[in-house]
């Protein structure tokens, strides 16, 4: 994903992987990814992802995502309220959804997805940058 920096799409991030280990055995039982990404276009993408772990036969662990939330928005500036752009999440604990917002920040579409069609974080960041560009074109 560092290509997003090289391409001038991402300015910075404070994402942290947190390995949650068993108090007794020290085995990693879950992994939590959280934080936010600041895009050069001004958008921010807030990330929360929970992953379960399963032991692999070779001694390593397999990591499986069990909860996602990618929330992209334009923060408030002087004279402009915060503007929601798009959000991917799975509040039901089942299949994920894509929520898109209009220029007034109202939810415009609420589309069910499957885990197979759930985009990766880098795709969500690129989508947020595209939505900001579209929004600015519409406003000019």
């Amino acid at each position: 994903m560092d290509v997003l920096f090289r391409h001038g799409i991402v300015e910075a991030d404070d994402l942290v992987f947190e390995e949650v280990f068993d108090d007794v055995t020290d085995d990693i039982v879950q992994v939590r990814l959280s934080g936010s990404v600041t895009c050069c276009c001004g958008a921010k993408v807030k990330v929360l992802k929970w992953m379960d772990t399963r032991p692999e036969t070779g001694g390593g662990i397999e990591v499986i995502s069990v909860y996602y939330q990618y929330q992209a928005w334009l923060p408030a500036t002087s004279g402009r309220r915060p503007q929601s752009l798009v959000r991917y999440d799975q509040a039901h604990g089942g299949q994920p959804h894509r929520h898109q917002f209009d220029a007034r920040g109202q939810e415009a579409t609420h589309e069910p997805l499957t885990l197979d069609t759930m985009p990766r974080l880098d795709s969500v960041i690129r989508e947020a940058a595209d939505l900001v560009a579209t929004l600015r074109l519409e406003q000019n």
Partner: protein
Amino acid sequence: MASILSEPKTVRSSVSAMIGRLETFISRMERRYECTSQAMLDDVRAGRARETAEISRWLGEYQALVSLRAHGREAGSATNNIE
């Protein structure tokens, strides 16, 4: 701010410490919305509550808490005492 996309920052937390943090966050949300997490999860599933970003995050953390508590019970670790 350092970038972690090419070199991820990783920290470690014990199951019991993470359960404690999640319980603090979830209690705050339950007080704010004046309902239990399970009731909110049922309402969202039934379409009675709108799936906002904040509620989705709350329910994501709640489901992680349920999973970590179950792990504590199965593993017989120190998290057994945390309910």
